[in-house]
Every structure is written in structure tokens, then in C-alpha cells.
């Protein structure tokens, strides 16, 4: 099977959109999403580089601002300049850039930019169609506005932790668990992206810019699926269960251990079966001598199947305990059981299905003379491709290109900015 990826020369869907990005962990992912889809995202870092460059893991485990894999991942396809916007010279340059930008994406504390004379109203005077999006922990107002947070803190306040953890019989007295990966900021970035796209659409027809105030806390609070609806309709609070949905009642376990010590997640393992499906399952498992009584004629009676859910779950549990992980998962999928192996990057890197979709993207790091494999696109656009156009920028890598070549600052002017510490 080949992927109908369009040619690499076609522009991405956001080509022509210029974005000034002044954000670290809060919204750098939003900037990456736009940059990989073709926007010209200019990352503006303070001289010396942004603090996110100090977050690991690092290339060969040696810390350094140009060695952060974390920074690399979140800043692909962007160009980078350094600019000290606390200085007057820096502010003048920033105003110049903002006058030609389509979008300013920022995550300073509320009040910071207006304090420098760089709030939305001030920037929009020179550029009425400018869109500005602020992504902050709690938004621009409210009693918690100035509270300091982190990924962990948002997953606590947003409700993720109240839903995630273990059944008591699996891990007695386990705390609520905050899932890893830095997802609070991903959640905020996704909603920021949607808000921005809405504003762009509005501008396409009216020419008007606007100001978007995104709250990471509200975004997280929107991201616990049915927990809110269950509370609103029953007054009850969900309880945490190992490897499956939190729920008000006790639900059957769906995460099973395999022979090789892996885990398989079977959505509703023993329930929702029909006689025909029990037979399909039984015949497959019989090939391994593990069908137990599933091929018994009694299971051709829907009423018997209906009341045997727990038994089927037990038979499956025993089956998985005697099967290697990948064989069990793929075998089930071939028979239309929507099961999932709990995979790590060891299984994911090189997965042939992902290779078919050209998910593994080689990215050159010319300064290192090396090429590394990055995660690619979740979605294939057939007329305007997603692509990583370059690795993350080095500190101030495009100062000359952007400030000199594109904005026409002279060599002397650039030199003066450098001397004053503004770039």
C-alpha cells in the first residue's frame, strides 16, 4: 500500500500565515502544529535562549541549550530570533514585526505585555487585522489568575487526576495519578489552535483581527469525557479504576497481563458478545488449545451468552496469560475485536503500518552532521501536506535572515542591537 501523500513542493494549508511566538511550555505545541502545517512561525526568545532549552532529555544525556530533545520536538519548522522586549530598542523591533504579522501567540502572565506597552490594543493600532492569542494557566481574569502552575497542577485542578489511578485491590491506597507526557499544555494548545482558526476564518471574511484569551485550566476541565455529565445527571463522583474508565460503579477489568509480561487493553472484554462472535473467538482460541468451553453448543443461545460475561472475561484472562502480547492483539484485531496492546516506543518505532503512512520523518541537524527520526503527522492532507520543514532553530539562528534580509535592518543597526544586548 502506498500513501497518497501530495508532492513535497506543495505548500501546507497554513502557508502565508506569519506567526510571532513568544511562549515556552504553555503554547509552544500550538506553534509547532501551525509551523508543521506551513505557517511561518517566528519564535522570539530572550537573548541567550528560552528556558525550555534546559528541559531534558538531552542529546547523549549531555545538557545544553542546543541539545534538548524536548525543545527540538516542540519547535520543529519554526525560525528563531532573539529579542529582549524589555528594552526600548527591542520593543521597537517587536512593533515592526507585529505590524506585518497575522498572529501573535504569547503566554506571559496577565498584564505583562501591556506593562511594556505591547498589549493587543496597542499592537492592533498599527495592524487592525492582527490576531493575538494569549495562553495562560487561568486566563486574563478571575480569582486564580495569578496562581503559578505546572503540568501536574493543571492535571490536579482540571480533573484528570481524580479520574486516573488504580482499583484498591490492585494497588491499595494509591494516590490519584497524573498521566505523564506534559499533556496539560497539549490540551491548552489544541484549544488555542481551534480558537485561532476560528478567528482566522472570521478575518478572512471581515478583515477584522481580535484578541483570544485561552485558559489552560478551562481546557483541562473540558477534557475528562463523561465525568461532568455523570455528576450533573446523578450527583455522583466517578471512582478510579486500573487501566479503564473511571466510573460510579465497579466495572469489569479490561487490562490483562500477557505471557511475555505485557498488557493488553480489551474494551469490554467479556460483554457485548453475540453467539456468532463467541464462536469466532472460540475457534481462534481453540487453535491454541485455550478455548475452554467457548465452543460448547450452549453458547449458541443468546440468553446464555448474555449472562456469561464474567465467564468469558475469565476465559480471556487465561488466554492472554498464555499468549505473547503482539500475537494476541493483532490476532484479535484480525477478527474484529478492537483490542490494544500497551505499547512503548520500542514497539511503535518501526511499526509497518506507521511506515506505510510515512509517519517516521527524517530530520536533518546540519550543525551536528546527523539526521534523526521525528514523529510525523496524525493526519494526511491530500492537497496541502503536513511536513517538518526544518529542525528547531538554534539560538538567534535567523536574526540576520529575518531582521536584516526581511525587515531591512542594516548591518550597523543589527550590530548596535547586539551591543546593547537587545538581540
Amino acid at each position, binding site marked *: 500500500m502506498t500513501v497518497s501523500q501530495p508532492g513535497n513542493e506543495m505548500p501546507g494549508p497554513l502557508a502565508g*500565515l506569519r506567526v510571532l511566538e513568544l511562549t515556552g511550555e504553555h503554547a509552544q505545541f500550538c506553534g509547532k*502544529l501551525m509551523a508543521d502545517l506551513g505557517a511561518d512561525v517566528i519564535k522570539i526568545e530572550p537573548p541567550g535562549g528560552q528556558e525550555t532549552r534546559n528541559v531534558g*532529555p538531552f542529546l547523549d544525556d549531555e545538557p545544553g541549550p542546543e541539545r534538548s530533545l*524536548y525543545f527540538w*520536538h516542540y519547535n520543529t519548522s519554526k525560525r528563531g530570533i532573539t529579542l529582549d522586549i524589555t528594552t526600548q530598542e527591542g520593543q521597537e523591533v517587536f512593533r515592526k514585526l507585529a505590524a506585518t504579522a497575522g498572529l501573535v501567540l504569547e503566554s*506571559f502572565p*496577565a498584564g505583562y505585555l501591556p506593562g511594556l506597552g505591547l*498589549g493587543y*490594543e496597542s499592537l492592533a493600532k498599527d495592524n487592525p487585522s492582527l490576531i493575538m492569542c494569549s495562553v495562560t494557566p487561568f486566563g*486574563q*481574569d478571575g480569582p486564580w489568575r495569578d496562581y*503559578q502552575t*505546572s503540568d501536574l*497542577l*493543571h492535571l*490536579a*485542578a*482540571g480533573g484528570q487526576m481524580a479520574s*486516573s489511578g*488504580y482499583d484498591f485491590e490492585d494497588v491499595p491506597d494509591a*494516590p490519584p*495519578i497524573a*498521566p505523564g*507526557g*506534559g499533556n496539560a499544555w497539549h490540551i491548552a494548545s*489544541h484549544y488555542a489552535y481551534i*480558537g485561532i482558526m*476560528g478567528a*482566522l*476564518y472570521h478575518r*478572512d471574511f471581515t478583515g477584522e483581527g*481580535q*484578541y*483570544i484569551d*485561552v*485558559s489552560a485550566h*478551562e481546557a483541562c*476541565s473540558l477534557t475528562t*469525557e463523561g465525568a461532568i*455529565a*455523570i*455528576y450533573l*445527571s446523578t450527583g455522583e463522583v466517578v471512582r478510579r479504576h486500573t*487501566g479503564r474508565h473511571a*466510573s460510579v460503579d465497579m466495572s469489569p477489568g479490561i487490562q490483562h497481563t500477557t505471557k511475555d509480561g505485557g498488557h493488553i*487493553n480489551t474494551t469490554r472484554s467479556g460483554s457485548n458478545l453475540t453467539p456468532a462472535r463467541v464462536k469466532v473467538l472460540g475457534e481462534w482460541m481453540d487453535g491454541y488449545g485455550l478455548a475452554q468451553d467457548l465452543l460448547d453448543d450452549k453458547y449458541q443461545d443468546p440468553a446464555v451468552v448474555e449472562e456469561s460475561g464474567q465467564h468469558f472475561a475469565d476465559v480471556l484472562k487465561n488466554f492472554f496469560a498464555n499468549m505473547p502480547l503482539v500475537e494476541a492483539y493483532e490476532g484479535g*484485531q484480525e477478527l474484529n475485536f*478492537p483490542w*490494544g496492546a*500497551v*505499547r*512503548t*516506543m520500542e514497539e511503535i518505532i518501526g511499526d*509497518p*503500518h506507521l511506515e506505510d503512512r510515512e*509517519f517516521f520523518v527524517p530530520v536533518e541537524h546540519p550543525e551536528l552532521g546527523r539526521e*534523526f527520526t521525528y*514523529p510525523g503527522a496524525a493526519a*494526511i*492532507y491530500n492537497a496541502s501536506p503536513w511536513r517538518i520543514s526544518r529542525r528547531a532553530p538554534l539560538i538567534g539562528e535567523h536574526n540576520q535572515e529575518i531582521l536584516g534580509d526581511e525587515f531591512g535592518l542594516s548591518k550597523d543597526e543589527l550590530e548596535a542591537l547586539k551591543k546593547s544586548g537587545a538581540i
Partner: protein
Amino acid sequence: MQANGSTTPKRRKERPLEGVRVVDFTWVRAGPWAARWLATLGAEVIKVEWPENMDMIRLNRFTVPPGVEPGPNSTAQFADTNAGKLGLTVNVRHPKGLEAIKSLIGVSDVVIENFSSRIMSRWGLGYEELRQIRPDVVYVSMAGFGQTGRQHYFGTMGPAAQALSGLTHLSGLPGEQPAGWGWSYLDDTGGMYGAMCVLTALQHRNRTGQGQHVDLSQMITGITLIGSAFLDKTVNGRDSRRVGYPPGNRTVWPGAPVMNNYRGPIAAPHNAYRTLGGGYNDWCVIACLSDEEWTKLVDLMGSPAWATDGKFATLDGRLEHQDEMDQGIEKWAITLGKYELADKCQASGVRAMPVQSSEDRVERDPQLRHREMFTKVKHPMLGDWKFQSAPFQYDGVKVPVKGPPPLIGEHTTKIMGDLLGVSRDELLQGFEEGVYWPETTPKFDYVQRSIDDEAKR
């Protein structure tokens, strides 16, 4: 302090996507959640359903409030997931139904679906067919594994997709099985991606006049959220099946080698602590991202002897003695309510937030209340019901849902008659022939009424 944006809110007259029409074939959660956001942004979203093969969320018995008659129009989870859409029932497997849906797509901008891969093509509603009818159509497919790739036919619900993407393994305590995510994170986030794909492709269309097909995979969406672990493997060759991983709520598990575990900066303390009351959700998280923040926490705790020991003065020391430190902090935390604890910490410059349940967020969270997170909208079965607003404001104005969700088939006669110009006789005949409602399924009163009204025209 002044906010970063507009200080003089102007109320916008319209939502940004007004004028965009979306034909929504999605069901369950990820797809409907995507289209729900398009509706919230102002699009006219027409949810296409068939009562014999109903969106299973309509049948979710866990979210029917007591006193409300159970049924496909009574579930709160369906309501919030489909707020602001219109409801059309049509049988796309009936030739006349297929014709009707094609004429609807002819006057629409967007088609969105989350069936198993290639089902829509089997019905004659694939991208290649639809672009004949509407050349600039934006068509977004949201299958588990996508439409391309050798395993495109593999099916996923949220939890299986999370397992396969690597997300499940990120969550839990070392030495235990994964705790995973206690909800379908990839239905919520898969929905976000679906909406993002539509909006992005609309941008492309606005600029070039060109539509396109976007082939999204729910499972792969999850992999893109684990970039640091991905690069740690491809660049450094590091496996994540390792001692001390995943490290629970900490950044590094006590005794495990100090390395980044993909949650941001390495820090200690960084954990959940029990608070006063000891109830199921009486926990507060505290994170000190610098020595300075730790010193502030020590002061706030009243500088107990254990905490002033020099071994806790540095990050390395706090990581090495995490268990002792966490026990000390918890002894203090348990004396305060979770909100009081968080407020005290924040007032002293220490990062802390309460673990909030769903009830906490609806009833106690002062920030969500201030920002009008929940907006009451009248719903025919649920009464005045709270719906979740957008987590952003445009020019200082909150964006609530556009309206209640559709009753099944609520707008069929309106859409077919007023929008598509189907004649009264054809419409009535369609209802008799099982095009707009199954012949053997009893009709709801409102469906019968809409047919009667049509007959009287």
C-alpha cells in the same frame, strides 16, 4: 494588574464560522466532539442519524437524570457532546436516502465522519464520489488507524487507541501495571484533532479555493503527544521500560537514576499529598520548581526541624531523600483542607492546586465560576441544563454552546423541505417508504407532529 489583551470588550455579533455548513456523520464521542466545536464556533452542523443503528451515546444509561424518562433524547453525555447541532434522520442505504444526502452535501462545505475505515466509500459517499458533487468539499475522516496503511481496518475505542499510542504506558506507578487514563483521552483529543483538521483545511480553501480529504488516525494522534519519549528512543536509544518508570506523580522515582521522564523540568517536591478530611479526593499537589520555591514552602510549613536539614537544600538532595521529604510534607498537608492549602501555598509563591473531582469543578471552583464555564441552556428533556463553554474568550466575550443538542430526527422536515426544496408529497412519501424514518420503529411525538405539519401545508 491589567490583562494582556483588549480592555474594552466589544460583544461580537456573530460566531466566526457562521455560514459554514457541516454534514456530520460521526457517532460515539471523538467525532461528535469534533463537530460540537464547529457548532460552538458558529457552523450549521447537521447530524445525520438512523434510528435503527443509533449513536450509542444516546443510549448511555449512566447519564439520565432521575425523574427523566430514559430514551435516546435524555442522556446528558449525548447532550453536551452534540450541543448546538441540527438533527436529520435519513437512511443512506436507501437509494432515495442516498440521493437526499448527496443533495445536502452539494450545498455544504464540510463532511466529517468517524466510521471504521472505508465504510463511507462502501455507501457511495467516499471523497472521490463527493468531490464530483461538491468540488471544494472539505472531507475529514477520523478512523482509529486511518484510511491508509496496512492495518487501516483495525478498530479502536479510546482506551485501546491510548494503549497502542504509548499514552497508557506513561501513566502509573513503577513496578505496577499501567494505571492508564481514566477516560477516553483520545476521544476528547481525537475530537480536537478532527476539528483542527476541518478548520485547517477551511483555511486552505479560503486561500486557494481548493477542498481536500484529510485522513486522520485517532491512534497516531496519541503518538504525536509523546515527542520527548519518541526522540529519547530514536536519538538516544533509550527504552521506556526501565527502573522507576513511569514515576507516578513525581518527576523521578526515589532510588531510580535521575533522568527526565517527559513531564517537563525535573523537580522535587512534585507529588500529591493527602489533605484534611482524608476523603477519596482530598488531595493537593505541590511542585517546587526551584530551590527558592522549596525555601518558601519550608517557611510556610513553619520551618520544621526535618525540613531545614541541609540535605534538602538542593534538588539532588531532595530527589535522593524524596520519601522522607514527602512524608514530612504530608504530615503538614493533612492538617489543612485542599483549597485552603493551595491558597496558602499560592499566596506564598509555592505552586499547589487541589485535586478536583467533577463535583468540585461544578460546585466549588471559583475560577471556573468566574469565567462562566457552565452555561444553562433549555433542553426539552433535561430542562435548564448546564453545558460546558469554550475555554477561550473572543475580545473578552465568553463563547457558550450554540444551543441544545438535536432530538433524533428533530429537523428532518425542515432540512429536507426548507433547505433542499423537497416537495411536500415527496417528503411524506419518503416517510412512508422508510427513507426518513424506519418503517417499523415507532415515531416520537415530535416526529409525527412534524410530518402532520408538513401534510397540512
